[in-house]
């Protein structure tokens, strides 16, 4: 009985993230448009795009290999699994222990690995630009992310997201310098990972600036749809991770009743909305930076993360 | 039962006379081999029959090892020299007259070395060693080229000075012994000296040892007294290079060891160890560095002989059961390996028609057997397992490191540098694109591979009796 319920919740979570992800992106777009005094696309535009793409036929370059066709599914699956293992509205999901935070990061890493390969597969110059820049950014973002994980994990005494969330809510933490550093770093990393301004511009095809878009340039039809969905899921993943680590309030405990779960769901949606708005505001208020200033940006994130960890090692209380 | 001992002397002497009389090289070469074989058999019979030593001849565990080693290498070398000399005559580098002289001298040399080893009298030993030196001088010069004569001359002059110094040391030993033992021959007899050494005048002993160290050290080829050695090896006939490296150095070393034992018996005298250790280290390092710039293959291996003599003297200088054992082992292995290498080098030089390393290359491609034989020899001489020298170097370095860390480290560095030098040249000789003439060698590989096989066996398994003998000697050396 209990198992079945947990299964249900796990399934619900998987569907929830899948459904909310395009909405989140859409919301960001809408808010940005409004901030720019444009009407902008309707909130549900991303869904429409996806469906349209899914219906279209795939045009495959002659030089594309079987790997090129497999990768979209791999990327989508990896990201989806990662996103659906993050406690969103209810902690203690059935399979949450099958991968802790480090594993989740690594899972996204695999997705990126394959995406970068896809960029090289057709053998065009733009794909190359995209992949090489992507891995360069990743080579800084991933260690930064791991440092952040270290910081939080050392405070929570665990790398299990549910346990961490629980520990954060328990108020035993209090305000800590290292947590602040970690939060700041995490935001910077998320921006980089999701190819947002100032690192990358998801809405351009201007070759000198694009990274992620260049990588997926050769994709079309359902493949493109899956990849877009994957990147939307990725954005959702990061927002939910921030939410679950730093503003965990409202998440329903494993034994929570229907009310608690309703509260959890509501608070989760609210958090997402807030995240979207903040992201939009940030993006509109800043300019895209040159590719070779990105290392400085992410290096800063890495240093912040390392500093946080170091503080914890040196004195457990900071 | 003294006759086994006498045989070791009589056979070569008789053979020398006979060979001097007989013409024609095929027969003489065979006779030479036969005589060497007989000598070897007689020598190895020493292990079975135990002749007691008289006033003039001495036999104990120490020189048994040396005698058997000497006669064995003497035998194998004679086999090698048969085929070598044959080729030399064909290309007309040697005339039959010289070959006759050569064979006679070969046996004289054997006689002299055996005499030096069995002599129970420091004067006799001196005479024998000098005799051996002069014979080799004559053989080094046998090709009558400018270079050969020059090398022989250098060898001769430096050798004579060595002779003089050694003699002075011998006289001093006698002076030291006379007050205790009394005048006359007895004061020069080893067994008498050893038994009474404690009462000798230490100051005289010290002085004597210094002269002996320099005198016989010249023959051992210790730096800075080594100057004659490389050229003598490079310019003489290759069998002689083999005998020089494989045997003559050992004989001189043997004399040095005897006197070391003598001094060790006297409590007030200076410890001979440190002196030997220092000279050994200097020789090892110096020779190791000298390996790098060599362009003549035989001269290179001559320097490697200096390096190994350095290691051996170092080991004996350190003393103690382990180090002495290692020294003996190293000496044996070095004789076998180095003579094997010279066997290979001799044929290589004949195939390539030159001794210049620059003009030979890719031997393993053109003459696989010869090439791989050389590679194996160099691997052995560089002290890589599973061959014998690795064991001795292992024992020397590890046992020293526990006692004198810095010395061990220096020695290890020397070995490493030597390894680099040897393989630097080996690469050009044995590997890479073939260079120079690629005639097939009509060579007798038996001696070379016999030696290498022995070295290989010693590296992984040493028969108990041999170990027993070595341990006794090691104990004897203190």
């Amino acid at each position, binding site marked *: 009985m209990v198992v079945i319920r947990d299964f249900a919740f796990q399934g619900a979570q998987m569907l929830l993230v899948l459904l909310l992800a395009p909405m989140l992106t859409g919301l960001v777009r809408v808010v940005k448009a409004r901030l720019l005094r444009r009407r902008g696309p309707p909130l549900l535009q991303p869904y429409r795009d996806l469906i349209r793409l899914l219906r279209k036929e795939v045009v495959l370059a002659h030089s594309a290999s079987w790997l090129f066709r497999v990768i979209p599914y791999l990327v989508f699956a990896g990201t989806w699994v990662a996103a659906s293992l993050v406690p969103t509205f209810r902690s203690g999901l059935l399979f949450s222990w099958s991968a802790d935070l480090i594993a989740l990061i690594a899972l996204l890493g695999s997705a990126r*690995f394959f995406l970068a390969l896809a960029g090289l597969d057709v053998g*065009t110059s733009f794909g190359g630009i995209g992949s090489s820049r992507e*891995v360069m950014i990743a080579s800084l973002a991933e260690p930064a992310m791991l440092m952040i994980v270290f910081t939080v994990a050392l405070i929570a005494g665990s790398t299990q997201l549910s346990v961490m969330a629980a520990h954060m809510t328990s108020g035993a933490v209090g305000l800590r310098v290292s947590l602040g550093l970690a939060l700041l770093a995490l935001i910077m990393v998320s921006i980089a990972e999701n190819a947002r301004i100032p690192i990358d511009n998801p809405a351009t095809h201007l070759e000198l600036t694009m990274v992620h878009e260049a990588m997926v340039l050769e994709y079309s039809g359902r493949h493109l749809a899956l990849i877009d969905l994957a990147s939307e899921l990725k954005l959702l993943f990061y927002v939910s991770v921030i939410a679950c680590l730093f503003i965990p309030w409202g998440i329903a405990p494993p034994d929570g009743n229907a009310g608690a779960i309703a509260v959890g769901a509501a608070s989760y949606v609210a958090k997402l909305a807030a995240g979207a708005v903040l992201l939009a505001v940030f993006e509109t208020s800043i300019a895209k930076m040159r590719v070779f200033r990105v290392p400085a940006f992410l290096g800063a994130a890495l240093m912040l993360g390392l500093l946080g960890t170091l503080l914890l090692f040196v004195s457990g209380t900071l | 039962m003294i006759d086994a001992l006498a045989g070791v002397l009589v056979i070569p002497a008789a053979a020398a006379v006979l060979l001097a009389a007989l013409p024609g090289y095929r027969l003489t070469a065979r006779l030479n081999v036969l005589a060497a074989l007989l000598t070897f058999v007689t020598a190895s019979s020493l292990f079975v029959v135990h002749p007691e030593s008289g006033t003039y001849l001495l036999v104990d565990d120490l020189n048994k090892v040396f005698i058997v080693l000497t006669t064995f290498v003497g035998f194998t070398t004679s086999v090698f020299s048969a085929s070598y000399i044959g080729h030399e005559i064909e290309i007309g580098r040697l005339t039959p007259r010289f070959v006759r002289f050569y064979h006679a001298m070969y046996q004289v040399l054997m006689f002299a070395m055996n005499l030096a080893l069995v002599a129970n009298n420091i004067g006799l030993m001196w005479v024998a060693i000098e005799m051996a030196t002069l014979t080799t001088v004559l053989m080094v010069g046998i090709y009558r080229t400018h270079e050969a004569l020059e090398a022989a001359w250098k060898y001769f002059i430096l050798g004579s000075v060595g002779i003089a110094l050694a003699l002075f040391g011998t006289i001093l030993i006698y002076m030291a012994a006379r007050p205790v033992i009394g005048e006359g021959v007895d004061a020069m007899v080893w067994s008498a000296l050893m038994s009474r050494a404690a009462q000798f005048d230490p100051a005289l002993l010290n002085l004597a040892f210094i002269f002996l160290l*320099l005198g016989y050290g010249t023959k051992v080829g210790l730096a800075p007294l080594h100057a004659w050695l490389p050229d003598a090896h490079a310019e003489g006939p290759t069998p002689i290079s083999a005998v020089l490296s494989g045997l003559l150095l050992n004989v001189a070393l043997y004399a040095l060891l005897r006197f070391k034992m003598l001094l060790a018996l006297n409590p007030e005298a200076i410890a001979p160890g440190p002196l030997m250790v220092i000279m050994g280290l200097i020789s090892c390092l110096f020779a190791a560095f000298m390996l790098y710039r060599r362009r003549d293959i035989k001269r290179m291996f001559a320097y490697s002989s200096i390096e190994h003599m350095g290691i051996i003297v170092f080991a004996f200088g350190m003393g103690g059961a382990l180090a002495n054992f290692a020294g003996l082992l190293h000496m044996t292995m070095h004789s076998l390996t180095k003579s094997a290498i010279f066997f290979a080098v001799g044929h290589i030089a004949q195939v390539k028609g030159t001794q210049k390393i620059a003009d030979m290359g890719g031997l393993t491609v053109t003459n696989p057997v010869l090439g791989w034989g050389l590679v194996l020899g160099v691997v052995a001489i560089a002290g*890589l397992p599973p061959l014998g020298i690795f064991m001795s170097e292992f024992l020397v*370095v590890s046992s020293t490191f526990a006692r004198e860390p810095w010395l061990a480290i220096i020695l290890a560095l020397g070995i490493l540098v030597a*390894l680099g030098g040897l393989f630097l040249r080996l690469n050009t000789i044995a590997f890479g694109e073939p260079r120079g003439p690629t005639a097939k060698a009509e060579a007798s590989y038996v001696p070379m591979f016999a030696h290498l096989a022995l070295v290989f066996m010693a590296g992984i398994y040493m028969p108990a009796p041999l170990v027993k003998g070595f341990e006794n000697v090691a104990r004897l050396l203190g």
Partner: protein
Amino acid sequence: MVTFALFCVAAFLLLSPVAVVLSRSPRASGVVYASCLLVTLMLAVVGGMCLVGQPTSRITLPLGLPWLGAHFRLDALSAFFLIVVNLGGAAASMFALGYGQHEHTPERVLPFYPAYLAGMNVVVLADDAFSFLVAWEFMSLTSWALVVAHHRERDNLQAGYIYLLMAGFGTLALLLAFGLLAGGDGNYLFDLVRAAPPSAGVAAIVLVLALVGAGSKAGVVPLHAWLPLAHPAAPSHVSALMSGVMTKVAVYGFVRIAFDLLGPPVWWWSMLVLAIGGITAVMGVLYALMQHDLKRLLAYHTVENIGIIFIGLGLALAFKAYGMADAAALALTAGLLHVFNHSIFKSLLFFGAGAVLNATGERDMEHLGGLIHRMPQTAFAFLVGCVAISALPPLNGFVSEWLTFQAILLSPQLPSWGLKFLVPAVGGLLALSAALAAACFVKAFGISFLGRPRTPAAADANETDSHSLAAMFFLSALCLVAGVLPGIFIDALAPATNALLGVSMPHQAGLDWLTVVPVAESRSSYNGLLVFVFVVMSGSIAAFAIHRLASDKLRRGPAWDCGYPDASPATQYTASSFAQPIRRVYGTTVFHAREVGDMPPPGAARPARLTVEIRDLIWDAAYAPIAVFIEYATGRLNVLQFLTIRRYLTLVFSALVLLLLVLAIWS
């Protein structure tokens, strides 16, 4: 047990002369490699049986040092490494069954190959200093012979030369270490050393020597210089052995000395090991990123992984020094598990490189490309290897690095301040190296297998033979199994950690869903199996749903490329251009990398050129000076070859006077 193992070794040693005799005949390689395969499998089984609970067995043969004999011992640690060695050996032999057919000079490979395997096995079994060192150096010697097997190709001799020198250097360091352990009267038996472990001071020196000796063989920075030269020079199946297996034998040497013979460690040892490990990891991968020779790139990655292993070992030492046994067990397990994993995927990758080399005759990635079309199976296997070595779930490379991270997370309890500062930094380095490794293998696979062929050789390459493929797929399967069911392997390592630390990680097999729980469920857990199943399931669901509900139509067309498709493959990204952003970020400091652009003036006909200059600072700082010194010293001493007799006499004379003076001043 050990007796049987030694019989197998003897079989190897007998194979060598057989190979010498056979080497001319065409079927020689088949015979030799098949028998090697057989024997390695037997040895692997022996190791397995011993690991799952046979008691330690020992034997003494009347070989080696006469009064000592050769002692051999098969305990849990040896058994584990026996498995590592022989799994790698078996795979290599399998691969060589096909690959070896293309060997031009089999007589230079076949005799040494079994001897090499024998050497590695004996190192693992040896139980006294002499046998250990003999086997160790024998291993180096035979591998040297294999490195110079293709002695006519450029640089191979040079590589072999440097390799042999470094090997000799390492052996001498170990020799000194054992000399110190043995003491003046030569207690070369490991049991005697265990019985009377050395004093702290001595132990420290021994540890440093062991780190130098074993490290130079394993390729820790800055002693790695020989490795990327020698490993690629050998035939590919031997490269696989050298990189995948021999470096692990070196690790074994270090573990044996540091954890077994030295007694209780001191905390600062671990700082040494950790620092070296961290630097090695990052430097190795950075070097690799700058490479576009496929095999050399792989060799540099060996350096990186050795660094990761040493990080694990260093943590284990630290925990052991402070008596945190469980944490030590975790760290050691992580290190050893990475030993196993790396041996597998590195062999796999070298096989792939070998297959490519065979099919195209190219090692330079700039001349490859598009191979996935011509050799799909090789490509697949190679891809598996790439994912595994990039430490990505759900394959095995990730598990061991994940365990290492878990060990790092346990380390704040360490009291010493030095470690408090060092460990997080090392953690950062580890993370960095992992990320960079992924980048590097995107490059390796993407440039050589994806895209369009850059040379005719690459364009008409053919799929490699079935034996090679079998070997590769076997290893790929192992990568997956070890990735999704790590619990089994962790449990298998328990006896080894027990033997060295007295404790082992908690038993994993019993846990539901086969999850891995290093410390406690609440702390951290990972379930490769579930992750794998989830990914596969959701992926296939998506595929199924889309093909059913949406379109499954597909049309081939020219590449889009923002509307500027270019027919010439030269317009693709190359290895060096792919690495350019990373080189800009890291290389400018680490390698003094400079880009020199030569832009012709307008109207000039000559092409514009961009050349990249990279300097190997470690080589310039550590190795070049030695060569210079040798050059100088030999030059100076060489004068002594050309003196006149009178000067030589002067030498003798001054020696005499000097000694007399000494005598006069004596007492």
